[in-house]
């Protein structure tokens, strides 16, 4: 019975490693300048976790095979040092692994979070609310008007709480339901939650960041391929969470300029 279990364990282990090792799961296309670093990090993590997984499971199967069916009364061999040394060793091994991943990954992380966007980056504010994303561009004057939550009037398409009656800066702010950006230009996205926690996730951009009520969080990226990509909310935010999405349109500079001009004319 013990030997049978060892065989089953080995089969399950190898079968679950097979699709990973042979790259059956293809990564979605990467459309960002920083995405390759994230992909490398994911690959390193998978390799490290994969070796640990294979080693642990196969060793387990080996011991089960070797020591199964033994008669009672045989002497048990203990490693020197007892449980304390075992725990300490495991702690150091796992700690080293996590630390190594952290050291390897710090560059990928820093590129997104510890470097400031360039001053000429395109400024866009992203607002998440139950259950849609809205985006705001500063308009012709290049300035974002201040927000007044009491002025939010969704039936009137005032999703951000602008006050165009009293605030001239608000009159040219462009509010859209899709995020349109030009190719090869840095975008500085300021995340703002209207109600509860949400998340901004574009897998092709290799970006995922929570919206936190009360905090204005910052993200920056440069898209390198034109196309239409999904922006999803990946933080359970309520009843309509499943339908909370928007689209990211990466346009050529020419198309983007035209799009921006058309939006400005609508104001």
């Amino acid at each position, binding site marked *: 019975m013990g030997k049978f279990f060892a065989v089953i364990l080995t089969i399950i282990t190898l079968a679950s490693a097979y699709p990973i090792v042979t790259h059956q799961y293809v990564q979605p296309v990467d459309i960002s300048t920083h995405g390759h670093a994230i992909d490398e990090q994911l690959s390193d993590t998978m390799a490290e976790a994969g070796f640990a997984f294979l080693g642990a499971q196969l060793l387990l199967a080996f011991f089960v095979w070797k020591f199964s069916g033994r008669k009672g009364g045989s002497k048990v061999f203990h490693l020197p040092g007892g449980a304390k040394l075992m725990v300490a060793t495991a702690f150091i091994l796992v700690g080293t692994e996590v630390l190594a991943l952290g050291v390897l990954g710090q560059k990928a992380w820093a590129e997104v979070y510890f470097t400031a966007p360039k001053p000429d980056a395109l400024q866009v504010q992203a607002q998440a*609310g*139950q*259950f*849609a*994303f809205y985006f705001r561009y500063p308009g012709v004057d290049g300035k974002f008007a201040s927000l007044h939550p009491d002025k939010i*009037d*969704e*039936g*009137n*398409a005032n*999703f951000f709480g602008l006050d*165009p*009656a009293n605030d001239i800066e608000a*009159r040219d702010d462009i509010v*859209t*339901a*899709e995020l349109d950006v030009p190719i090869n230009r840095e975008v500085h996205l300021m995340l703002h939650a209207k109600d509860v926690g949400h998340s901004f996730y574009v897998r092709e951009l290799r970006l995922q960041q929570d919206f936190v009520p009360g905090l204005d969080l910052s993200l920056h990226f440069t898209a390198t391929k034109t196309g239409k990509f999904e922006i999803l909310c990946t933080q359970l935010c309520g*009843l*309509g969470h499943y*339908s*909370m*999405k*928007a*689209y990211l349109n990466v346009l050529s500079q020419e198309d983007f300029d035209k799009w921006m001009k058309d939006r400005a004319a*609508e104001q």
Partner: protein
Amino acid sequence: MQGKSGYVAGLVALAVCAIVVHAGPSGGTVSGKVTYEGTPAKQKTIDMSKEPSCAKQHATPIVTETVVTGPNNALDNVVVYVSAGAPDDAAPSQAAKFDQKGCQYLPHVLAFQVNQTLQIANDDQTSHNIHPLPKINREWNKSQPPGTPPIEEKYDKAEFIPVKCNIHPWMHGNFAVLKNSHYAVTADGGSFSLANLPPGKYTITAWHESYGDQSQEVTISGNETKPVNFVFKAKPY
């Protein structure tokens, strides 16, 4: 002789009929037009790309409906009703119907009476969650996946109630819950007509979701038609 009396009886019957038809249910009428002066706010295009099943129902994208105007400064979606002078009416048996179609509320403004059945249908391939926001009636919100039978509700107090969808933030409508049957909602040109008003003194009120309300007094003394017009001040923002 017999033939003659039959003739007279017939004549009398005809006269009685004529009187009944003439004076019966008609009564007086208040009719007029609702217009605006000034510049109304520019309505904004609604982008519903996140809900493709709805977006594809609109060949050209729809716009917000907080101010809907017509030719010659006509103002639509104004509820004109008798706010004082008429007794409260019992609710009619037929339901007031409100539809969710193309991620839009149809009609944008629905007027009905206190305790009248309100029937809300979902004609979309997506879930809606209708959430009227009353201040004095009981508040509720109801989820309605595609294919769900219509929701039936009633309101027991007169009130103007904004309506929103908890899933689609751009969806917006209004309920006007009224005490009597003398009301109209202006459409396609701002004109309205309130018929069957017995002689008496009435307050006629016009309500608009963005511009508030206005009232006028009118006295009906017979089968007359009294003109009443309302002019709202439009603001660009």
